[in-house]
């Protein structure tokens, strides 16, 4: 007895959600991480705390407030409606937005740490070799922070794959639309379909293990000597 059509669509949706979320997070998280690593602004502590909030908040709390904000009467809902996009809850893009916020610390923090570990010196050296700040960012900072990016991408992806509470609050549990693997497992268990639940749950265990195994084995973070 293998995976059903519903299981497969849940897997496909989960992978799509995790991929889009990771890409979005790398794009918006990198400048945030750079800012956090280099700013002397007093807002640094505030922004850092907000980014880290999903680490400690129960996903239902986060999901609840996101639902309120994205709803027809919430500030975000009003905005999306005025732009003609409708409301986000119970849609794929609503899930993406929620996942981006939920997984943000897992992407921003490793990248921020990597940027901080580089220090000012390589950036100053690049400036004395005629590289503009933007040029320096792409030719020196990003390559040197590569282990941080790798960690960030893997953690961001894996964390999004594993989310449950936020997705349930924002997306409901609509098969084929917002039903991700973790919700699908929940449904199987509710329906006493333990064999089905095993296939998916076991798959998640194997997937998570492989991801972390790869992270700890291949990340060049601890291998490269400084110069």
């Amino acid at each position, binding site marked *: 007895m293998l995976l059903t059509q519903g299981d497969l669509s849940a897997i496909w949706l989960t992978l799509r959600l995790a991929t889009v979320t990771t890409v979005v997070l790398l794009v918006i998280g990198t400048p945030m991480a750079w800012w956090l690593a280099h700013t002397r602004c007093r807002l640094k502590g505030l922004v850092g705390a907000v980014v880290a909030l999903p680490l400690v908040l129960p996903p239902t709390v986060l999901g609840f407030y996101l639902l309120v904000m994205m709803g027809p009467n919430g500030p975000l809902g009003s905005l999306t409606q005025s732009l003609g996009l409708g409301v986000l809850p119970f849609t794929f893009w609503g899930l993406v937005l929620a996942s981006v916020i939920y997984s943000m610390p897992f992407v921003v923090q490793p990248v921020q740490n990597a940027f901080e570990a580089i220090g000012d010196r390589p950036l100053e*050296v*690049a*400036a004395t070799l*005629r*590289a*503009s700040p933007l040029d*320096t960012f792409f030719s020196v900072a990003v390559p040197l922070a590569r282990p941080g990016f790798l960690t960030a991408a893997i953690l961001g992806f894996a964390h999004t794959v594993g989310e449950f509470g936020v997705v349930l609050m924002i997306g409901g549990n609509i098969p084929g639309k917002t039903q991700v693997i973790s919700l699908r497992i929940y449904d199987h268990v509710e329906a006493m379909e333990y064999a089905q639940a095993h296939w998916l749950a076991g798959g998640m265990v194997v997937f998570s293990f492989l991801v972390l195994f790869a992270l700890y084995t291949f990340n060049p973070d601890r291998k490269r*000597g*400084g*110069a």
Partner: protein
Amino acid sequence: MNSSPASDRIVARFRHGYTGFSLEVNLDLPARGVTALFGDSGSGKTTLLRCVAGLERAPDAFLSIKGEVWQDEARGIFLPTHKRPLGYVFQEASLFPHLTIRRNLEYGQKRVAAAQRRVSLDQAVALLGIGPLLARMPAHLSGGERQRVAIARALVTSPRLLLMDEPLAALDPRRKGEILPYLERLHDELEIPVLYVSHSPDEVARLADHLVLMENGQVRASGALTETLARLDLPIRLDEDAGVVLEGSVSEIDVDWHLARVAFAGGKLWVRDSGVPLNHRVRIRILARDVSLALEPHTGTSILNMLPAVVTQLGDDLHPALALVRLDAGGAPLLARLTRRSAAALDLHPGQAVWAQIKAVALIG
């Protein structure tokens, strides 16, 4: 001092307050040869260099290099570091660890317009002897090799000014000895003015043409090396190493006794023959403690080098028992360290003719 046109001067005025330290300099330096910024740690040498590079922005500043204004806060001009045609060698080599040596060298070079490239990669590689290293990664180089690569990397951007922040300080004495000859070649073969931060009297004596003495963020003295080293009024001298550096050329080689004779403005001196060919320009260093004075030319002494000189000034020394005497030997300054008692016994006074007996002369490059 300001007689030459601005086109071959470096004019630097910086006022920059930090907590517990302020930099306040006003310098007019020759834009050729090596200018050493010399002083204790905390004297502001590195801060000054960073201001020149634009890595720090002093709120009250003017900087022009050979007539090109890089910073003039009064007119709101501040060229960011990457727009200044300079080379900077940091204390630690700071090579990019993710690039091979070749790509480290090319990093700056390819960011300089081809028309402005005057130092080729091959030239810099040959000058610093790093040919065999090009395919390697920085992590696999010794400290001395890395620093040579860092110097070459700065050179291939064809800088109009080369800034060096104690490039040898992080190296052990052997590595230092390995790099100094390359720095001397740089000095002799390329026409790039260098600002060289150092707290090593040895490096200054070997490399510098012009000396700036820094103390507590201020300039205590600035002048030609020979002149400045021979001044008696400077609060930080080279302490035990007080002495002069003179330039001359090899005029004679005595093969039997392994000696070479160096002719300079004040006469001729015998030094140990270190293989420098005839007529080659050399620097010699004579420490004040190796010079004694006599009123008559002595015979029956082991001292080889005796020069007629005239006392020009007497000054205080490290200890109240000692005096530092400045002499003029045919236009070249010399320093002699004597006890005050000897100075009194000889009745030394400015204008008096004496014989300087020089016990040791070091040939430095």
